[in-house]
Structure formats: structure tokens, C-alpha cells
């Protein structure tokens, strides 16, 4: 069976965008250098010199320049090698891009893509690792997508570039880049908005984002040997997820765990629980569980970092407790290994 990496899928969609749509440009700090945004824009400047544009260190104005490009008929793909740097573009993204269509009564559309890489690998510390989906998904007018697989990248980026006429933020997880995935592993055409049923199960629903979808798969594989059946929903679009898919799954299992790459309060976990509480809290037979980063800035020391992020052990433990409907369970936990170390030597295929 053939396989492909997340990175190669990103590279494919970047090449296609320039090749197929003459009015597309890639613009950002480092898009022309020898690293090429972790290998996703390598060599493109040589082939499309006027449309792969290096920038000064000026995220605010570059975001505004992208809006101006969008207003004048060119589709800009703006890159940030750390999502944290994207915070410098929030004025343009939130005050301007998100509002232009509505605020002017439909006179303008601002089609643009902002690629932000969640920088978590090892030792990235407090300012190179943040996962900003909840801040961005809060804003009407923005679409936010967290692709978890190469298939998600291909389907959603192609759709965004060719069809979507508004601003969209793609949050790409650094740990996913070099992972291999079976090429036919997922439906090749799930929509840009909405969510994806990643794995069918009957005992516990896990709603996950980005790399936590893979951690949920590892947990589900492990738990299957103990007779526990986990259903996994890849939330995919944190701004425009599939509410019905989540409600249907929770109605079936009665048990919910949300696993996000960010903090749980005011975030994805809070949002998914809101949806259930507002629809029918009795869908849950037990209190739900939220799993995310510890409520602190990210520490650099490895010993603390390993405690900071939840991993497959946490998921196994929490899902087993939900399944057992008690604070304890008889499932032995998998060997303790740092998640970053695991993805360093295990590249897939997933």
C-alpha cells in the first residue's frame, strides 16, 4: 500500500495552487529560503519568482498586504512558521479580514489563506508552541481548519483555494509533518468545513483535534485489545464543525472525551460541552472528560514538557475510566514514553 507524509501533501497543494491558479501567490517569511516552510515551498520561488514572495519581519503589514491582494483579485497564501507569530497579524485578521464581507454589506470578499504552524516539537517553550484555534474560531467571519491527515490537507486546501471566498486559517501541527499515512486511509473528499468520522466505535466518543486524533487512534487500538470500542471524531474545522455528528455519536455512546491540542477552558473542549449541554445534557450517562495542555504557559524543560501535554497514556486511562464508569479500571497503561520521542522514531504509516 502506498503512503504519503503530511508534509508532502502540503507541498502538493502549494505546487498545485501556483500551477493551476495563475492569480495565486505564496507570501511569508522564509518561503524562498533553503528550508522552505519545513519543505512545503522548496524550489517554488525559482519556478514562480513573481508569486513566491519573501517578506520583511512585519506580520501586521503582510497580513494587510494579503487583504489588499485579495481585494484586487489575487489569492494570497500567507505562512507563519510559528502560529505564535500570527498573533502579530491579529489586528488585520480579526478587525479587517473577518469583517470585510459583512461590514460592507457584501461589497467585498477577502479570499486569503493563512497557514500557521503549531510549533510543538521538543523544547519549543512558551512562545513557539501555542495552538490558537479557540481564539480564532471565536471570531465570526473566520474559518479555521486543523487538518489531521494528508487527505484532510489535500481536500481542504484544494477547496479553500478554488472555492472559498473568505479568510481561512490553517493550523498545521509540526509533529504531523513527517508522519506517513496510508494513502487510502480516509475518505478523500470530506468538506472543508465540518468534521470527519475517523473511527467507528460503540463505547466511548472521543472528539479530537489535529495530532490528538492520532493519539486517540493509538489509544483506541490499544483499548480494543481490552474489549473497549472507541469512536473517534476528527473535529477538523474548529470554527465550523459538524454538530450533528457529535450529538449522534454521544447519543449512541453516552460517554464523551474531548482531546484538544490547546487549553481546555474557553476552548474546543468547552465548546463541544456547550453543544451537548444546550441540546440535551441527558445524552451523557457520565460526566464528560476534557484533555488538553496544562493551564500554564508551555515550559521548556523536557521533564515539565512531558507533563504539560496529555498523551496516549492519559487517553487510555481516561477512556478506560469512562468505560468502567468509575474512578478505577483494570486496563494496564501502555509504557510511558514521551509523545515527542514516540513520533521521532515512529513515522507511521497511520
Amino acid at each position, binding site marked *: 500500500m502506498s503512503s504519503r507524509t503530511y508534509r508532502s501533501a502540503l507541498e502538493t497543494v502549494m505546487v498545485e495552487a501556483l500551477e493551476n491558479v495563475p*492569480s495565486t*501567490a505564496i507570501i511569508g517569511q522564509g518561503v524562498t529560503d533553503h528550508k522552505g516552510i519545513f519543505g512545503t515551498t522548496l524550489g517554488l520561488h525559482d519556478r514562480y519568482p*513573481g*508569486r513566491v*514572495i519573501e*517578506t*520583511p519581519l*512585519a506580520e*501586521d*503589514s*503582510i*497580513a*494587510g*498586504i*494579503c*487583504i*489588499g*491582494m*485579495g*481585494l*484586487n*483579485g*489575487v489569492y*494570497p497564501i500567507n505562512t507563519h512558521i510559528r502560529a505564535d507569530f500570527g498573533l502579530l497579524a491579529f*489586528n*488585520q485578521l480579526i*478587525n*479587517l479580514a473577518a469583517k*470585510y*464581507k*459583512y*461590514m*460592507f*454589506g*457584501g*461589497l*467585498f470578499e477577502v479570499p486569503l489563506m493563512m497557514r500557521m504552524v503549531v510549533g510543538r516539537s521538543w523544547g519549543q517553550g512558551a512562545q513557539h508552541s501555542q495552538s490558537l484555534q479557540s481564539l480564532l474560531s471565536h471570531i*465570526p*467571519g473566520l*474559518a479555521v481548519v486543523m487538518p489531521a491527515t494528508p487527505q484532510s490537507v489535500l481536500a481542504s486546501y484544494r477547496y479553500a483555494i478554488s472555492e472559498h471566498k*473568505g479568510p481561512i486559517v490553517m493550523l498545521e501541527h509540526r509533529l504531523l509533518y513527517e508522519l506517513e499515512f496510508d494513502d487510502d486511509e480516509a475518505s478523500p473528499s470530506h468538506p472543508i468545513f465540518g468534521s470527519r468520522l475517523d473511527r467507528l466505535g460503540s463505547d466511548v466518543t472521543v472528539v479530537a483535534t489535529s495530532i490528538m486524533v492520532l493519539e486517540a487512534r493509538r489509544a483506541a487500538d490499544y483499548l480494543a485489545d481490552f474489549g473497549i470500542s472507541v469512536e473517534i471524531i476528527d473535529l477538523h474545522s474548529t470554527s465550523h464543525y459538524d454538530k450533528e455528528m457529535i450529538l449522534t455519536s454521544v447519543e449512541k455512546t453516552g460517554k464523551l472525551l474531548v482531546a484538544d491540542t490547546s487549553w481546555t477552558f474557553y476552548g474546543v473542549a468547552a465548546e463541544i460541552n456547550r453543544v451537548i449541554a444546550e441540546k440535551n445534557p441527558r445524552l451523557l450517562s457520565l460526566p464528560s472528560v476534557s484533555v488538553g495542555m496544562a493551564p500554564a504557559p508551555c515550559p521548556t524543560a523536557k521533564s515539565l514538557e512531558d507533563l504539560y501535554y496529555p498523551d496516549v497514556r492519559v487517553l487510555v486511562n481516561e477512556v478506560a475510566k469512562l468505560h468502567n464508569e468509575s474512578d478505577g479500571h483494570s486496563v494496564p497503561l501502555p509504557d510511558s514514553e514521551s509523545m515527542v520521542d514516540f513520533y521521532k522514531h515512529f513515522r507511521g504509516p497511520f
Partner: protein
Amino acid sequence: MSNRDELIIRSLRVRMVEEKIIDLYPSDLIQSPVHLSIGQETVAVGVCAALDDRDMLFPNYRGHAFYLARKAPLKEFFAELMGRKTGISKGKAGSMHLAAPDYGVMGASAVVASTISHAVGAALAERIKGKSDRVFVAVFGDGATEQGAFFESLNFCSIHGLPVLFLCEDNSLAVHTSLDDRQSFSLERLSDAFGIVFFNEEAGFDPVAVFETTSAALRHLRGGSGPALLRVKTMRYREHVGPGEDFDAGYRAERTVTQWKKKDPLLGDLSRFTAEIALIRDEIDQAVEFAIGSDFPGIEELLTDVL
């Protein structure tokens, strides 16, 4: 009619529209803030007269004068200010967010300096799409020149040699704070540091002077020599936001404004324009009547055009 008289009439039209807004304001027909251009009309009129129809202009929240100087429709203007669904943006924009893309008015923002980079991006897009001698005008006040986004935009624009006219309407005030309390730099030397040609017009009250200086800057831009920065000195007669005067607040001397007004052609002898003034008055009355007679947007608009 001479070019001078033509420009004075256009400026007068802007002033008469804003004086109508002042008349209407106590009635609450306009239920949102207004940043009036009174005293600054000649800048917008002089600049826009020098532009071609195809050029794009990126204004800010003090944008009535530019919208009107680009000849965008007056009925939809008043309807917009009154929050009616016949407004140019269905009432969702109001005074601070005027736009009329068919007239090259590319959307006003109420966050200072935030549309300057849009002009640069639109110019970059034009280059990507192919050759054209269109120019792109970023409009901002002297307060905006303190923002990082302004410095960043100058830098990027100069690196790429894009045809952007950076137009600074310098009324010496950022809300209530004067230039001397805010700036340690000279705009001309800053422009020079970025390799951007600087044009200056002290006589912002004179639409012909503004027209001619703008025309000189545009010749530079259309010649492909990269961006230009044009500063026009001007005077805001009214308070920062709202219809009134606020000389009693003490942040500036009324004398400064009084002296400037002596040079204001719109306050001079207008007896030769009686016919034109009557026409403008009719046009304004009809536009106001149109707006008042229009419906308000309803629930069907609340969630339209979000995404």
C-alpha cells in the same frame, strides 16, 4: 467654468452634505458616530480630481469627503448613514466604513492605519496580474504615521517599487493630542530613509494647489519610479468625532482655526455659484428624502454575508 471654480464647487458640495449631517444629527436619524471632514474637503477633492477612475483609494473612518469626491452616489450615502437597507452597504457600515468599489473606494476602517497596507497589497496584486499604470492611494492622518504598520508598509512598498501614493492628511491632531507631543521624527526624513519621494503641500485649503501637487506625485508614480508620500497640511474645524466644535476643551487654540478659515475658499465670496449651490441643495434634499423613505434592514440581513 475654470478648473479652480470646478474644484471649489466640488468641495462646497462635500461641506454642504456635512452641514446637512449636522442639521440632522439632533433628530437621531443618524445613530452612529460621525467624523466630519469639514475644513479638510479640499484635500479629498484636489487629490481625487487628479486621479483616474481606475485608480483605487483606501480611505479611513473620516471618509465622507473621499467617498463624495470619488463621485460615489449620494442617495446611498445618506441611506447608509441612516442605517437603511438601501444604503451602499445595506446600513451595516455606516459613516465610519464607507465603500464604493465601483468608484474605486475600497473600504474605510475605523482602526487607525489599518488600510495603508491594503493599498500596498492591491498594488502588488496588480503587478502579479500583469502590467498596468493604475495607482493605489492609501489615505491616513498624521496620527497613523506613528503606527508600526505605516513603517512596515513604506518598507515593503519601497523594496518592491510599487505605485502607491501614501497620502497623509495632516491636521496636526490625533484625537486631542498635537503633533509636537507625539512625534520625534520628521515625516520627510522618514520618507527619505525608506527611499520614498516626498511631496509636500502646505496650502491644503486650496484645492488647486492640492490638485497640482498630487498630479506631480502621480506623474512620478505612473512613470514607474516607485511609491511617493504626499503630505497635505489641513485643518479640522470640528471636534474629533461628532457634529460640534470643542474649542472650550482647551487642547488647541481657536485662533489657529480662525486664521486658517481666512484662507478657506469655501468661506469666501460664493455669489458667483448661486445656481450651482441651488442644484446641490436640491440633490442633498432628494438624497435625504430617499434615505428617510427607505426601509431598515430586517432580520434577513442579520446573518447574511458573515462568511
